[in-house]
C-alpha cells in the first residue's frame, strides 16, 4: 500500500507542478489551454538534452528554457497581439504534438540514466511541488508583486490606472508559468516515466489544466487535487488492492472520469458558482488593450 501511495505521489507531482504554473498565469488573466503542448515540448527537449549529455541538470535546464520560450510565444500572441487565448493554446498543443513527434523519434526508448534520487522514500518532485505551492501562495497573497499580478488578472484597466504595467506583469506571469509547466513536462519525461515515445503524455496536461479550475485558483488545493487524482488514477488500475471484488475493473477504470463529472455537477450549482465567481480572475482569458 505504501508503494502504491508513493507511485501516486510521483504522478501527483507532475500534475501539481504543471497546474501551479497555469494557476500563476491564470491569476494574471492569461489562459493557456495548451499545457499539454508546453509539457510535450519541454519534456521532449529536456529528454533529448539529458540523454545526449547524460546529465539531469542539463535536461531540466533545457526544459525550463523551452517552457519559458513557449510561454513567451503564448504571451506574444495573447498579450501583444491580443488574439484569442484559447485558439493560441490549442495551436501550442498541436505544435507540441507535431513537433515532438517529428523531432523525438530518434530518441525513442528509455532515458538510460540512473533513476532520479528520492528523499526519504518520497518522490523528490512531490516535495518540490509542495514547496512551490507554498512559494506561489506566498507570492500571490503576501507580497506586493502578487497583489499586482492578481490585480491585472482581475481588472487590468484599474491596475493600469494605478500605474501597474499590465503588459509587463502578464509577460512575467506567462514566462514563469511556461517554466513551471515545462518543469512538469520534464518531471514526467525524466523522472516519472523516463521513456520517450510519441505523444507520451496522453492527456496529462489537460488533467493539470482541469485541476486549476477545480482548485478555485488556490495553490494548496491544486496540490490536494493532484494527490487525489493521482491516487484515484493509480487505484483505478489496481482496485483489488483496496476494494477486492467490488465492481468490475472496467467500472474502476472509469471512476476518475465519473468523479470528474460529479465535480463538474457540483461546480455548476448556484452555491458553488457564487463562490467560484468570487474566486475566478475576472479578466481571465480576456485580451487587454490600453485605452488611449
Amino acid at each position, binding site marked *: 500500500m505504501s*508503494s*502504491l501511495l508513493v*507511485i501516486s505521489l510521483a*504522478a501527483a507531482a507532475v500534475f501539481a507542478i504543471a497546474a501551479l504554473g497555469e494557476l500563476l498565469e491564470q491569476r494574471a488573466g492569461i489562459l493557456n489551454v495548451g499545457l499539454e503542448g508546453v509539457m510535450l515540448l519541454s519534456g521532449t527537449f529536456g529528454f533529448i538534452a539529458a540523454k545526449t549529455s547524460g546529465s539531469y541538470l542539463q535536461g531540466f535546464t533545457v526544459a525550463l528554457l523551452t517552457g519559458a520560450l513557449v510561454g513567451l510565444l503564448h504571451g506574444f*500572441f495573447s498579450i501583444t497581439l491580443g*488574439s484569442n487565448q484559447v*485558439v*493560441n493554446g*490549442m*495551436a*501550442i498543443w*498541436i*505544435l507540441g*504534438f*507535431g*513537433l515532438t*513527434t*517529428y*523531432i523525438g*523519434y*530518434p*530518441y*525513442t*526508448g*528509455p*532515458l*538510460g540514466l540512473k*533513476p532520479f534520487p528520492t528523499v526519504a522514500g518520497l518522490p523528490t518532485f512531490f516535495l518540490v511541488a509542495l514547496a512551490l505551492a507554498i512559494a506561489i501562495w506566498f507570492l500571490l497573497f503576501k507580497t506586493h508583486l502578487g497583489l499586482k499580478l492578481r490585480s491585472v488578472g482581475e481588472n487590468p484597466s484599474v491596475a493600469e490606472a494605478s500605474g501597474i504595467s499590465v503588459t509587463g506583469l502578464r509577460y512575467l506571469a506567462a514566462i514563469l508559468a511556461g517554466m513551471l509547466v515545462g518543469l512538469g513536462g520534464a518531471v514526467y519525461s525524466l523522472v*516519472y*516515466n*523516463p*521513456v520517450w*515515445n*510519441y*505523444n*507520451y503524455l*496522453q492527456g*496529462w496536461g489537460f488533467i493539470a489544466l482541469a485541476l486549476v479550475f477545480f482548485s478555485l485558483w488556490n495553490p494548496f488545493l491544486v496540490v490536494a487535487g493532484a494527490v487525489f487524482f493521482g491516487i484515484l*488514477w*493509480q487505484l483505478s*488500475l*489496481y*482496485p*483489488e*488492492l483496496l476494494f477486492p471484488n467490488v465492481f*468490475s*475493473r472496467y467500472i*474502476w*477504470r472509469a471512476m476518475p472520469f465519473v468523479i470528474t463529472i460529479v465535480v463538474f455537477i457540483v461546480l455548476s450549482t448556484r452555491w458553488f458558482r457564487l463562490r467560484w465567481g468570487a474566486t475566478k480572475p475576472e479578466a481571465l482569458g480576456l485580451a487587454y488593450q490600453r485605452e488611449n
Partner: protein
Amino acid sequence: MTEQSRMLRQKLSRRGLLQGVAAGLAVPVASALLAACAGGQATPTTAPAGQTPAAQPTTPPAQTPAAQPTTAPAQTPAAGATPAAKEVVLAILHFSVIEGTTWSGAHDRAGKRLAEKYPNVKYIYREQVGPDQTVPFAEEMIAKEGANIIVGNAEFIGMPLLDIVDKYPDKIFVAVTTSDLTHKPNFIRIFPRQYQSLYLEGLIAAALTKTGNVGIVSAYPNLQVLRRQAGFVLGVQEAAKKLNKDVKVHIKYVGDWYLPAEERAVAETLATQYNCDVLTQQTDSGSTLDVCKARGLWFVGKDMDTVCFYKWATTDTVAISFDTRWEVIYDKIIQAYMKGEKPPEIIFPGMESKITLKDGTEVTTTDIMNDCKVGVEAISPKAKAELPQEIIDLVAQRREAMRKGEWDPFTEHALVSNGTGLEVEGLPIPPKGTVVKPAGEKPTDEFLLQKINFDLDGVNILP
C-alpha cells in the same frame, strides 16, 4: 561508419528543414499545419536499396555461426537464388512510424533486406497510415509507383484493402491477421509463429525467477495476444515442472497497445504488490523495460532485439528477447509473384522457415535474439549464469527441433482453459479446466489463429 554518417547528415538535414519551417511560423495556424505535416500524415518515401537506419543494422553482427545449422529444412524454394527479372514493388503501409518502433521497425527492415537481396525488388512505404487512408494510399502507390504487392502491417489497416482486391486482380494484397481470417486468392493473410520464440522465453523466465512470480504487462485480450501469451505460459509451466518450482504468471491488461503511463504503473505494481522479479510485455512502450532497469528486475523482450538494434538497455536487464523476420513471409509472396503463381492465402510460418540475406546470413521467421546474438547464445551472460544447465539444454533442444519443423509447443502440450479470455461471437470462453486441445494433437492453423480465445489454466488474470 560511412552509412551512419550519411544517415546522420540526412537526419540533420531533416531537422534543419523543420527548424527552418518552425522558425518561419508567425501565426499559430501555421504551427497547426506543421503539426499536421509532421505528426499526423504519412511520409511518402522510397527507401533506396541498402539504406538502413544507423540504429538498425541489417544483419546481426555477432550472430553465432554455430547456432545456425547449415541445412535449411524448410527453406523457401527460391530463397537465395536470383529470381527472374520481373519487377516487384513491395509497398508496405505501416500503421505507426518506423523509427524507434519494434513492430513497424521490423517490417521496414524486412522490406529493406529484400530490396538489398533482389535487384529487381523495390521497397516503398507510408508511415502512420490510418484505416481511412489505407485505400487511397494503396491506389496512389499502385498508380504512381507501380506497387504490385501491397501490405497493411496491422489488421485494422490491412482489412480495408479488401475493398479493392477485385479492382486490381493482378496485384497481391496482404494483411497481418489478428482475429479475422478473411482471405482471397489475391488477399493474403500473414502472421509469424512468434509463440515458438515466446515459449523458449517462458522456459528461461521460469528458471530465472527467484520469487516464483512472473508478470506480463499486456494490452487487452485479443486473439493475437492470447496466442502469444499462451506460448510464453507453456514455456513457464514446463520449466517450472521440470525444476519442481512453483511459478505463477500474473497478467494485467492496461487497455491498449500503447499507454506509457499505465504500462509503467502496472509494471511497478506487478513488481511491488505481486513480487514479480521477471517481467515481460504485450504492449508497445518502453515503460516496462525501464521499470525493470530501475528496479533491477529481469526483462524478457518481444518482437525485436532492442538491445542490438536500438540500444535501449543492456543484457544486465534484458535476459532474452526475440526477433521477428517478416522478410521470410514477404519472400514467399514475392517468389510466388515472380513465378506468376498465387501465393498461399494464409501464411503462418515459424522457425522452420528461413531465407538467406544478401550477406549470406540465414534468418528464420522468428528466433530468440538478444544483443545481436541468436539461439542459446542470446541469453544474457548474467542470466545464463543463474540458469540451471538443464534449462539451457532444453532451450537449445526445443529450438533445434522447431527449426527442423519436428516439434511445436502447441502440439506437444494440452491447451486447458483458465475460464478467462475473450468472448467472441460464436466462440464462448471455455469453462475453467476444459481441455480445449489434448496433448500430442497438432492444432490446425485456423485453430491457432482464430480459436485460442482463452487464457491457459493457472495464470492469474488481475482485475
